[in-house]
């Protein structure tokens, strides 16, 4: 039977002042499984941990119970010290005697001491059933797949190819560019969007590391971080790819405001995108234009601000003014959203050019007059409290970006979560651009509507995050942890006890469990690379065939049994 060493920390009187540590030491030493029990001033100091470490070596104790501060205090650091000394993590138990006992029970020293004894006994009981998970290491395929060749996807492809990784760039359409192909200029630089995309497209075309696929349909994605197997069909036929990381840059689409402001029924009521198309072909001088903001956005169905519509309207309004300084341009808005120094300056520039702004309320939207074509717009100005008649011959509706229709399918295939509107969601707020699925990153408007500048930034960010994974030769399942240190563990199945009911496969939030035929019956299998050790499968298993070795049901049972052992220290 392996012996346990009990190390108790005084924390310079912080613990000692409430809990009677010497009585605790004597009481724990009575236990036959305890090799020795010692009290030191502070386990987190190097001078003090030397003595217990040499005692552990001498006595041959294999397991250690530490009674010190909480894991968020110095507890984890003490555990790390012991791990460095060669004691396996699963053989170390940390008992929180300071935050969880001494500091909250200052007025009840007897109760606190009894509690401390129980907590130590609980941990000792649990340690006898705790094991470490088996690790598995896979080779990382140093290639990346980027879904979508818009500004985000292109910048990610450029960044990754610069770092020397092979990139498969998939595009739904026929060429790179994404939404920038549809617009004439980009804000806030007022640069031609063709020029902006050209630089990136050239790099992508010339670099032999980037292979571009057009008219792509993704048929299936299988695998895990470091080794995804993707089946696609493109203009060159079907192809199977093996990639280490996936970057989702599939963008979003423009919502069309059918049913609002007589769009589609009245001539010269157009969307912002149609205006862009007009500018892209050949600008027609416009004399009187009215822009209406927040069409179908910031309402009950889409309570979000799509962030790009205000600057786009400012851009096009200023452009009309540039071409025809005598033009009358109004922007009817609910709030002008131009955060940051650059966009605010952009707003001021439009203001200086003579674009006029009128604020209206959601409950009292402007009305478009005219029978065959637009004759004017009637709007209730909330600032001066009067109804205004605006003479105009063109109405431009600013509509928000909405998620692509195939987002749900893509999310299902990749195991990525979507937010309530349908955009892909990242791990907010600590891990931007990362999804819950290791090795899958998101950027650009697939994540949230963004301007081309921001999409490019996010693309590079996602590329660097992917490169951190692709740069490794091999990756182990336990290292796929988003917190410092290793992953807690992963579930393992006792194939003999498994009845193949499939409960675990049904509840697994990461699709790590699945049923597999084995010797004529179904048996659950856990993919260690996907498992995140949440323990859902453990809780639903009817006969305990699936277990987390670090958190065995027998360990929990032992803890419950010892929690209130009726024994007091006198």
């Amino acid at each position, binding site marked *: 039977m392996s012996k346990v060493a009990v190390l108790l920390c005084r924390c310079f009187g912080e613990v000692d002042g409430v809990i009677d540590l010497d009585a605790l030491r004597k009481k724990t030493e009575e236990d036959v499984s305890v090799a020795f029990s010692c009290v030191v001033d502070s386990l987190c100091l190097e001078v003090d941990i030397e003595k217990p470490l040499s005692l552990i070596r001498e006595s041959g104790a294999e397991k250690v119970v530490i009674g010190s501060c909480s894991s968020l205090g110095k507890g984890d650091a003490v555990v790390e010290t012991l791990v460095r000394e060669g004691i396996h993590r699963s053989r170390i138990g940390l008992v929180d005697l300071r*935050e969880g006992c001494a500091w909250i029970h200052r007025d009840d020293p007897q*109760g606190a001491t009894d509690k401390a004894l129980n907590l130590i006994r609980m941990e000792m009981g649990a340690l006898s059933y705790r094991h470490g998970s088996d690790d598995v290491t896979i080779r990382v395929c140093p290639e990346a797949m980027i879904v979508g060749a818009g500004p985000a996807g292109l910048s990610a492809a450029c960044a990754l190819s610069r770092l020397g990784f092979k990139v498969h760039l998939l595009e739904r359409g026929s060429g790179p560019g994404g939404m920038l192909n549809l617009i004439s200029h980009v804000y806030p630089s007022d640069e031609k969007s063709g020029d902006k995309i050209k630089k990136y497209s050239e790099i992508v075309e010339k670099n032999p590391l980037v292979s571009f696929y057009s008219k792509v349909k993704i048929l299936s994605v299988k695998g895990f971080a470091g080794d995804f197997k993707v089946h696609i069909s493109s203009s060159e036929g079907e192809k199977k790819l093996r990639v280490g990381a996936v970057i989702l840059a599939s963008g979003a689409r423009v919502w069309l405001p059918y049913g609002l402001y007589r769009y589609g029924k009245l001539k010269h009521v157009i969307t912002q995108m149609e205006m862009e198309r007009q500018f892209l072909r050949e600008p027609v001088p416009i004399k009187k234009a009215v822009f209406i903001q927040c069409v179908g956005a910031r309402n009950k169905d889409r309570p979000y601000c799509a962030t790009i519509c205000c600057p786009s309207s400012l851009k096009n309004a200023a452009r009309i003014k540039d071409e025809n300084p005598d033009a009358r341009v109004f922007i009817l808005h609910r709030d002008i959203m131009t955060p940051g120094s650059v966009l605010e300056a952009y707003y001021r520039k439009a203001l200086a050019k003579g674009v006029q702004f009128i604020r209206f309320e959601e409950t009292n939207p402007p009305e478009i007059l005219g029978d065959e074509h637009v004759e004017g717009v009637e709007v209730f100005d909330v600032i001066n409290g009067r109804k205004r008649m605006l003479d105009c011959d063109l109405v431009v509706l600013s509509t928000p970006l909405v998620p692509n229709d195939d987002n749900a399918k893509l999310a299902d295939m990749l195991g990525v979560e979507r937010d309530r509107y349908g955009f892909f969601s990242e791990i907010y707020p600590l891990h931007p651009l990362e999804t819950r699925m290791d090795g899958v990153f998101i950027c650009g408007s697939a994540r949230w509507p963004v301007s081309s500048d921001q999409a490019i930034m996010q693309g590079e960010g996602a590329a660097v995050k992917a490169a951190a994974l692709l740069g490794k030769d091999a990756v182990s399942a336990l290292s796929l942890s988003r917190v410092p240190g290793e992953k807690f563990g992963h579930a393992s199945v006792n194939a003999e006890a498994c009845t193949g009911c499939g409960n675990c496969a049904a509840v697994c939030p990461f699709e790590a469990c699945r049923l597999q035929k084995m010797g004529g019956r179904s048996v659950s299998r856990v993919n260690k690379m996907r498992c995140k050790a949440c323990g859902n499968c453990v809780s639903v298993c009817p006969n305990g065939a699936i277990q987390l070795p670090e958190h065995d049901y027998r360990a929990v049972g032992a803890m419950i049994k010892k929690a209130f052992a009726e024994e007091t220290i006198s």
Partner: protein
Amino acid sequence: MTGPGRSNNRRTEEQATPRMLVFACKWCGLIGADGAGKKRIPLPASFRVIPVECASLVEPDAVIRALASGISGVAVLGCHLGGCRFNHANHAAMKRLELLKTLLDAVGIGGKRLLLAFGTAHEDHQYAEVINAFFEELKALPSTAPWMY
């Protein structure tokens, strides 16, 4: 552990200080526990914390086992719904444990003996409030007698 032979006095004493077992999620409840300790908020000594990686690791069997062994109440502290590190794991846990509550009601142990706090014990004072309130609630309930173990 005392069996059926223990005196009635003893049971009244227990009722005054109910025994509580807390399963605290490492990413929420345990942070609250740590904060409460750092703020030195006084709490009754008769509760024990079992840290778990996620609230979904709390097996319904473990709750039943705890209640059967004479523990008066079990609290499960997890992250707020939608804020789980493990996709929807805490959603599943909540559904499962809510179901267990009705089950406990049906068998006469009482669903009140199981406290589910998802996202309400993340901060120090919140944690202390949850523990104290549950403690008061348990005091009003009759003490449990162990019949297993």
